[in-house]
């Protein structure tokens, strides 16, 4: 998976209450609704500034706190190409993988990227590059299962496929 995009930078311990404030929770969402509240706990104008293909670079423990999937889903919906940080909150990581958003661990990356820098990532080859500064680093390997879920477009597609296989196996004439 190859990603190239303009960086938005955030600090350490950015919790999901800030990424997607609770006041915007709804039982169901219209298309585009989640994206329109992305990061408003930190910057109210962020949804109008961010462009499809941009990447988010955070500090240590990015996405800590509440389990809210909207934090990851709103990034996916806004077209964020990848979210990159030295470390992530566990639930946020899981939610990113499950919605199909590349969640990229890169030690020290927050010190190496400024707002607006052009970032290039290759998940298969395992590198990250700052095209403005020339900084380049190897990425720690991602679990193949997680990478596959991201490449498949998330857990929804995986679930659909398994359900389909089960239906076929249960259908009369399937030989079982």
């Amino acid at each position, binding site marked *: 998976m190859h990603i190239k995009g303009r960086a938005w930078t955030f600090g350490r311990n950015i919790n999901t209450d800030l990424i997607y404030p609770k006041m915007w929770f709804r039982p169901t969402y219209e298309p585009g609704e989640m994206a329109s509240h992305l990061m408003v706990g930190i910057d109210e104008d962020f949804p109008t500034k961010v462009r499809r293909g941009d990447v988010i670079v955070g500090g240590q423990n990015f996405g800590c706190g509440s389990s809210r999937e909207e934090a990851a889903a709103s990034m996916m919906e806004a077209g964020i190409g990848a979210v990159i940080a030295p470390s992530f909150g566990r639930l946020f990581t899981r939610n990113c993988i499950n919605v199909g958003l590349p969640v990229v661990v890169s030690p020290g990356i927050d010190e190496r990227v400024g707002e607006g820098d052009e970032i290039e990532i290759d998940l298969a080859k395992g590198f990250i590059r700052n095209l403005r500064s020339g900084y380049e680093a190897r990425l720690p390997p991602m*679990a193949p299962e997680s990478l596959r879920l991201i490449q498949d477009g998330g857990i929804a597609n995986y679930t659909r496929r398994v359900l389909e296989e089960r239906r076929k196996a249960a259908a009369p004439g399937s030989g079982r």
Partner: protein
Amino acid sequence: MHAISKIIAAHADRKGVEVGEIVNVVPDYVMLNDRGAARAADLLRQMGGDKVFAPWQIVVVFDHHYPPIRQQDSVSQKKTREWIKEQGITKFHAGEGIGHVIFPEKGYAFPGALIFGTDSHTVTNSALGCVATGMGHSDVASYLALGYNWLRVPEVIRFDLHGQFRPDVYAKDVALRIAQLYGEDAAPYLGVEFAGPVVAKMQMSERLVLCNMVIDFGAKTGYIQPDEITARYVAERSSSRAWTPYTTDSDSDYGRIVDLDVSEIEPLVAVPHDLSDVRGASTLSDVRIDEAVFGTCTGGRIEDFRVAAAIMKGRKLAPHTRMMVNPGSREVYLQAMREGLIDIMMQAGAQVGITGCGPCSGCHQGMLAPAENSITNASRNFRGRFGSPLANIYVASSATVAASAIAGRIVSPAEVAPH
């Protein structure tokens, strides 16, 4: 192997698992709260699933927005009630309390279990010696469809607690001390076990507080090795429950073992907006308190009410201070009434509300205005957590919260109620 690995292996139908390995597991129980149930049901449909694979494993708890004050919540709860019926889900608790308080109370959490929940504080249950972890909504929807989900086997860090507690120091202060020493990411993706002589003597309510707080160190689950205290707790609540004891083979099964002397700990407070920015309560006497928020899945148990009422008895809240109290469960509420604790708190001037999450994460009444200060026995001082993003939240033990509500400023409990 660590007991956590063994529990995961048992639920993956495997003899053993390696740390770092990703396996598919079948949980014992999965908690869906009001929002989790609504979102997961919706996402299940979007994934092409029409049936919940194992309805007997599902426990639906309305705690965040129940009773609803917004029409969107009443509409979605009506849908969820219909969905529960359609799917044959019979374990349903509305208005009985917060999921993480009633799970241990009602025997859904037990030693050796694997529990998922649509909420980060699901980790609370791990105090009973089980693996309990939060999940996202798509995550849970996939489990609902397929009957399993993936889990990465975590490395485990152990905190050995020893020494003697000073007066007015509780498990909450220990958790804040860990945040202070090791940060909000003390244990990213890890299992966190609490052990040592202090834990061996600790009652279940205090163990639940320790494990509740591990999510705010970044952990996947807590763990406390089941013992006599655990066995008695489970037997009193679900006498028919059979459970398998799992034990850790050796100290080499830990990524790290940390010694912590609790004798060094004084009543502590995490100051806005960072849980690892922790100070002594006695050093914050110039912080005016507008509202004390008492309850939640961290501090809403009967033992918290006993501690608070002992401090508040015969005293009044400071004239400029209000106090919102939400018992963690109906059982806690009834018991607190029977013991006269609600009486004491109301006579002091507290508002006692419904069982549920309270103002924490903006669920129930008691929102803060800009520039107001709140002290709470909840777990998080995140910006905006109790209403205005311009308000300040201080996190402390039940004793420190009760004492500060009386003093109208942050104090150490002994300043209000000397021994």
